[in-house]
């Protein structure tokens, strides 16, 4: 099956006063309709930039985008802004992280959603649009949608806002939905409901979802496939099952074991990754993770000079960018990856 979204060798760099930031550095992935790809990684690893690059929302004056982004067969990079614009909202839509700041404070929520609808349905009448939006608001679980239509974002609770945000993204039944940390701002109980909603809607609309998050809990619940990013590059890629149960990259192990597990022993310390993520302007040479990697020493310095490419991790569909050999990794994982649920 042809993936709906295909990204090949995406590179995004910003030129700022402190030098060049390679926010995304050679990223490739694909998402099919009806499936969810989760992009995981720590803050600054390039997740949001990837999402924005797909939508073509990066400011051309600041960001340089190269590579190929193919959406439903159309290559987007380099395409005229006007054409990309027509795809936005209809073929691909986005749910933003912070719904309060992502909505215009001065316009009623309903009108903002209606506006998104009418860009792509020029002939839709006012009343019809309203009916459509109200119905959608109800569908995403907003009680009293008629009343909420005319309320302002600041009058909504966090959960309602995020739901309205989702409604705005879904108003044109997009084929691709990009969700950038859709639940980080929310409480656990609300988060759970939003995730359910997303899953249900995906089934209904056969949407391809690109889910950006740093929370493995969320990944576990929603994702079919997972892409782990570190410093602008993919370090591991595979199905959710593969990545979560048998992670191959030391960074993924670290991430997984850093999360305090519900089943872990509270008496033991968490297995934290030492050090902190690299500064975006000063990414280490070789494997970007090597200064924090416990096993970097085992490759005779190769990690320090050579950048590992993404390659198959033995299992089909599961790929990893690490210089450690398969057995080496297996051994280490058996030794130290104990904290990882499995």
């Amino acid at each position, binding site marked *: 099956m042809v993936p709906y979204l295909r990204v090949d060798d995406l590179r995004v760099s910003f030129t700022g006063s402190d030098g060049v930031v390679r926010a995304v550095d050679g990223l490739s992935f694909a998402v099919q309709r009806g499936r969810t790809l989760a992009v995981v990684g720590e803050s600054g690893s390039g997740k949001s930039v990837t999402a924005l690059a797909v939508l073509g929302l990066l400011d051309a004056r600041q960001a340089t985008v190269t590579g190929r982004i193919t959406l439903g067969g159309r290559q987007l990079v380099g395409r005229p802004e006007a054409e990309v614009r027509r795809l936005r909202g209809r073929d691909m839509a986005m749910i933003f992280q912070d719904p309060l700041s992502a909505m215009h404070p001065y316009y009623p929520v309903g009108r903002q959603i209606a506006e998104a609808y009418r860009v792509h349905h020029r002939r839709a009448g006012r009343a019809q649009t309203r009916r459509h939006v109200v119905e959608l608001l109800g569908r995403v679980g907003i009680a009293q949608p008629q009343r909420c239509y005319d309320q302002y974002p600041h009058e909504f609770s966090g959960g309602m806002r995020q739901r309205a945000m989702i409604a705005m993204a879904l108003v044109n039944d997009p084929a691709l939905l990009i969700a950038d940390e859709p639940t980080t701002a929310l409480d656990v109980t609300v988060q759970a409901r939003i995730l359910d909603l997303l899953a249900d809607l995906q089934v209904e609309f056969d949407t391809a979802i690109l889910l950006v998050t740093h929370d493995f809990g969320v990944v576990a619940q929603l994702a079919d496939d997972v892409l782990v990013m570190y410093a602008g590059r993919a370090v591991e890629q595979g199905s959710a099952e593969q990545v979560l149960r048998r992670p191959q990259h030391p960074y993924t192990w670290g991430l997984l074991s850093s999360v305090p597990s519900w089943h872990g022993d509270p008496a033991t310390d968490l297995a934290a990754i*030492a050090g902190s993520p690299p500064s975006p302007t000063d990414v280490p040479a070789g494997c970007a993770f090597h200064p924090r990697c416990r096993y970097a020493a085992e490759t005779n310095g190769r990690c320090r000079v050579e950048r590992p490419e993404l390659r198959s991790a033995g299992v089909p569909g599961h790929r990893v960018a690490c210089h450690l050999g398969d057995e080496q990794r297996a051994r280490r994982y058996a030794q130290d990856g104990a904290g990882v649920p499995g």
Partner: protein
Amino acid sequence: MDGAVRTGAGDRIPTGRTVGRSPGRLAWMRLRRDRTALVSGAVLGLFVLVALAAPLIEAAYGIGPHDQFQSRLDGFGMPLGHAGGVSGEHFFGLEPRLGRDIFIRLVYGLRTSFFVACTAAVLSTVIGAVLGGLAGYLGGWLDAVVSWLTDLTLAMPFLIVALALTPTLTARFYGQRDEVPPVFGVGVLIAIFAVFGWTSTARLVRGQVVALREREFVAAARASGAGLGHLLVRQLLPNTWAPILVSFSFAVPQFVTGEAALSFIGVGLTEQTPSFGRMIYQSLDYLQTDPAFVLFPGGTLVALVFAFNLFGDALRDALDPRSAR
């Protein structure tokens, strides 16, 4: 707990003793890299230097600000020669009628104007910062009072108060016969500017402090038992330097033109004190008959204010790199 525990995650940055770069130093470095800032700063420096060195310049130039050269005026009191009497002896020519040398008067005028504007800017900024800071931090009735005072100050017509106050104060302090030292007129001007100029700084600082007040480092200091003084001076003040500096840098040119504006309606300094404002005000009448007389003081004023504004902009950019002009 004598240093026994020292593990923790090893995210130490393996360097020797480093020198912290304070936000102030960073701003300074940014400023030094900014070409506009350098140029405008240099121009300002030159102006300041000229103002400070006025007596030296007078000695070198050989002409004082009160010397008259009426023999070089025609029957109408207009300067003879080209462009308002510009010559090797009189760089910028002569004033019509009284026949004083424009250049040296400009030099001294610069001195007066600078002094007035800078002192007034310092005062108004201090008043504004103190009132704004207190209102912002303490809130409540004090905030209400300060904001009402702001409204009141804005509602009081500045020019009219200035016009009314100057003679009253003169009579109060010097009776009717005593020599009124130029300092007095300067003082009154400064007072007027300070009393009317503080509102924008106060607003700015208040806004800043209100935002900072909610920041957790303030709460941390309070939780440690810090008093009002510590909070205002040690915690909040260092974080309001940027807006204070910027508003200061914009207040100075505003007062320079303000002094001129006051002269324009006849308040301000007396003929005795060479001042920019008075010169410009008097020169404007000669727009048709002696444009050079308008050009020199006017041009200098515009250059000065322009440099100040440029510098202020650069300063703001440096202090807040996020702001786009």
